[in-house]
């Protein structure tokens, strides 16, 4: 296949499909443009992606957009079957880890001190390490106070893993207490 040939939209979509079905990581628009050696307009690319998404709308995989780009993922209805393939599923994180992650996600950027203040307990360094190793959080700077504590924020990878395009897509934090009591 030669790029100089006139390739029709179906063929262009096939190239996109092949790339997206074989990539482990989401592919950004810039990544996808590289497939065509820069010989494609962003607007055309977006249009083709929309069509591809449509083409797959009744099939096993769905084309979704997450923070760092586009990816195909199996539709939710197959999750239970696919879970059987890997019975030794990843151990769930402790409440301490998930609460720390929630604080960083909703209150970022925060220091360890901020997290301790909200949770009312000291933060085990192990908790931070687990989140960093998973590439869900990282250090984005230091707060300019004595000791210059590190400021933590969530990563793009966190958004990708949680199937989110941006922090605005996080579940809304509700004032549950008020609601339940009144």
């Amino acid at each position, binding site marked *: 296949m030669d790029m100089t040939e006139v390739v029709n939209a179906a063929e262009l979509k096939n190239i996109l499909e*092949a790339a*997206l*079905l*074989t*990539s*482990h990581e989401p592919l950004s628009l810039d990544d996808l443009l590289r497939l065509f050696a820069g010989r494609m307009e962003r607007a055309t690319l977006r249009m083709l992606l929309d069509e591809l998404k449509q083409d797959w709308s009744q099939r096993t*995989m769905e084309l979704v957009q997450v923070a760092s780009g586009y*990816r*195909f*993922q*199996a539709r*939710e209805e*197959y*999750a239970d079957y*696919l*879970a059987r393939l890997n019975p030794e*599923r*990843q151990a*769930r*994180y402790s*409440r*301490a880890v*998930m*609460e720390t*992650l*929630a*604080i960083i*996600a*909703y209150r970022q950027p925060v220091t360890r001190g901020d997290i301790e203040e*909200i*949770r*009312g*307990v*000291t933060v085990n360094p192990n908790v931070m390490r687990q989140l960093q190793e998973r590439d869900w959080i990282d250090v984005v700077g230091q707060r300019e106070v004595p000791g210059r504590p590190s400021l933590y924020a969530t990563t793009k990878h966190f958004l*990708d*893993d*949680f*199937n989110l395009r941006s922090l605005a897509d*996080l*579940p809304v*934090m*509700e*004032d*549950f*207490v*008020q609601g339940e*009591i009144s």
Partner: protein
Amino acid sequence: MIETPLNAKIKGEEFTALPKDLYIPPDALEVYLEAFEGPLDLLLYLIRKHNLDILDIPMADLTRQYMQYVEKMRAIKLELAGDYLLMSAMLIEIKSRMLLPKPAEIAEEDDPRAELVRRLMEYEAIKLVAQRLDDMPKVGDGISVASAYYQHISQVKPPGVTLDDLTEAWRNVLKRASHFKHHKIGRAELSVREHMSIILRRLKTDKFVEFTQLFDVVNDGIPKLVVCFLAILELAREGLLRITQQEAFSPIYVQIALDSNHGHD
């Protein structure tokens, strides 16, 4: 008294409340007490368990219940985090401040409980949202992303080279080749050299070019024409091209020099 679910899992099982009339072995109690994520978590549990109004916390009750739990923790020698003791002190302080006669001018927001209530509410919101994050499908846990195989052809991206790299290399060449001092290369000579290459390329395709055809007198200014002329002279001097003229005033032709050992064909 309404028992609200305790958000705790013990060895994978949902633990809603302490069985009241059963003997609890100390290690089980330990697990139970350890299920609290800290003093705020314990306080929230007590408020829910005893159906207390978080906006109007009866400090005496709450403090008493809290202290009972802390005592239990001590009794089983659970390594008591300083955070729990700190909270005890704080609760006692709030309680005692509430016992003080309230001067009339003290406004509502000066309620000694205000800060505690704010923290409890914030913590509860985080706790619930953490639960929701935990329940969300995630890549590797509920979400399977496409990762079909493909034949990796490594397309090698050539090394990046900057002009600095190039001049550095040239500098090194010059440094070593000291006999080069007579071959200082200035901009003018570079232009001449460039034209030498251009003319050679031209003669490679055209073989036989009329001298005047090598000059673009319409578009090139005098300096460029001079450079072109110098390039032809330099090429001739280096024996790279031959300049011929059949007779005086007839056209001058330029061609690639042919070695006497070659090309007499």
